[in-house]
């Protein structure tokens, strides 16, 4: 069908844009580099400083942006499909807040390391796990408030999520008042959304979580399609609605938690990207894959802007996504057919 072909076209276009954005993010920063130098540095040739900037700093950071943006957009796409609500996103539902609390507690306990420090792969995997536990705690409380007779009620889930999000913010502020001042500053900068903690270990760990999330969500695409008709009708089409909802909720939490563990709370990606992608496809398999690509593009571009707009000062990437995202979202809202 025609929409299938156009989904492929969009996929190819987004992949091309992502490639260009990745290249641009290697060129831009507090020191601008020439394309030739960047390619030489990627291959390990050229002067040591340039190689270090490209391979140790900018490349991990660009790849982390791909994964964090992709994971957040996937998480949002899954939550919107599962809740049947175009407003759902990991931030709004308290998942991000819970994950941030988990990360903070994990860091205070000495798990992994705080943003910026280098750790091995086990340390790198541990921080998202702490975030995931925090996200799960939030999700459990949200689910508890939203379950009616053992079933998750979609309407209450959103309300319950908003309340838990507020609660998580309070807990974060509470936790922050414990650390010493310099540590609190680091945490606050991380919380506002920053990719400055990018390391090869973080990239590797996050790619493990992202692949896991994608592997859980893609088989649910057919269920998400059917849920467009509502839960009852989806059930008559042979969909295991409760199983699908629980798996999707878990996968969306895992993705958002892993993203938060490395990049703090970055809003709008999970809300805006799936919204935009729904304009070109209603198939959830295409929606999930295109959302990943779209989220990656948005965050790579936003982070390049965050690093280079006021270089050498760095702006919070969450501020950039919100600055780009809010008007874009309003435009989408106004132009809805």
């Amino acid at each position, binding site marked *: *069908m025609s929409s299938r072909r156009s989904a492929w076209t969009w996929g190819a276009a987004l992949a091309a844009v992502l490639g260009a954005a990745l290249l641009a993010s290697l060129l831009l920063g507090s020191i601008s580099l020439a394309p030739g130098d960047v390619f030489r540095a990627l291959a390990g040739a050229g002067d040591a400083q340039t190689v270090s900037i490209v391979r140790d700093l900018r490349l991990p950071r660009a790849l982390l942006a791909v994964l964090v943006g992709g994971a957040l957009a996937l998480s949002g796409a899954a939550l919107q499909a599962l809740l049947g609500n175009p407003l759902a996103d990991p931030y709004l539902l308290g998942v991000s807040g819970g994950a941030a609390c988990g990360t903070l507690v994990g860091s205070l306990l000495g798990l992994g390391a705080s943003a910026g420090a280098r750790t091995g792969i086990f340390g790198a995997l541990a921080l998202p796990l702490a975030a995931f536990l925090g996200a799960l705690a939030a999700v459990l409380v949200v689910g508890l408030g939203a379950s009616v007779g053992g079933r998750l009620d979609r309407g209450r889930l959103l309300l319950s999520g908003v309340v838990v999000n507020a609660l998580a913010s309070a807990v974060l502020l509470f936790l922050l008042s414990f650390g010493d001042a310099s540590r609190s500053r680091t945490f606050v900068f991380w919380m506002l959304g920053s990719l400055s903690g990018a390391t090869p270990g973080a990239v590797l760990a996050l790619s493990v979580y992202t692949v896991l999330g994608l592997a859980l969500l893609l088989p649910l*695409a057919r269920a998400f399609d059917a849920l467009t*008709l509502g839960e009852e*009708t989806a059930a*008559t*089409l*042979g969909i295991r609605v409760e199983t699908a909802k629980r798996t999707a909720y878990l996968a969306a939490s895992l993705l958002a938690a892993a993203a938060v563990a490395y990049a703090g709370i970055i809003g709008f990606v999970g809300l805006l990207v799936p919204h935009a992608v729904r304009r070109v496809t*209603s198939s959830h398999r295409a929606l999930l894959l295109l959302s990943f690509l779209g989220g990656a593009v948005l965050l790579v571009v936003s982070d390049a802007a965050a690093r280079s707009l006021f270089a050498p000062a760095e702006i919070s990437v969450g501020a950039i996504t919100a600055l780009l995202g809010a008007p874009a979202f309003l435009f989408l809202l106004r132009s809805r057919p």
Partner: protein
Amino acid sequence: MTMPLAAEALAAGYGVREVLTDVTRAFPAGRVTALLGENGAGKSTLLKALAGIVPARRGTVRLGGRPLSEIPRREAARALGYLQQGFEPLFPIVARELVLLGRTPWRTAFGAPSARDRAAVEAALGEMDAGALAETDLGAMSGGERQRVLLARVLASEPGVLLLDEPTANLDPRHRFLVLDAMRRRAEAGGAVVFSTHELDIAASGADDAMLLSGGRVLAAGPVADTLTEPLLSALFRVAACVTPGANGRPLVSLGPARPR
């Protein structure tokens, strides 16, 4: 495919509220049954219980002689076609994609729709006079257009049993008859058809049998000539009913206020 459906001493409800009590009735293959009753009488709940959406609290739903609860999910999904009442699309979706959702029980988790899937989608859109709407977003349609697309979604799965909650709602007269014809064709092909309606002329002209529900219980059930009668209808709806014999022995029903103005 003949696919009889039956309810045996069926009770169903939500939370503490029991909506349906002690409903026993066979919906045999080849017959169209209209469910009639006031708002809240249990018509939608009965359809949902028959579709397996609302679990039976007591009693059994049997599909082809087997208890519905023991039939594998996918097999039941292929056999039963359920139309929900009212639908607001949450996300943009064009008619053809929505109708394709009806093929879900026939498709694998991955993979493009088969030629058979596509043929069924086009046939269903055509049958519901919705071919011209195929690439139109549901959100941009009138209530009646949307209703026809939703019906096409049910027909596209080629079910043996049709459970339709107010299938003629929002439809103009010509399309109402189109829907009645579609139901009739399914019954003649050996299907069982059950639908709810508030339009007595639709029940009288389109159904073989009627089931009158009052307060979640069966007030009467049987051929329309025996059930769409003045005493039963005036008792069911608490209005004045006037029934005269029409063409093909089908009753002609008109209703008026309980106390003449």
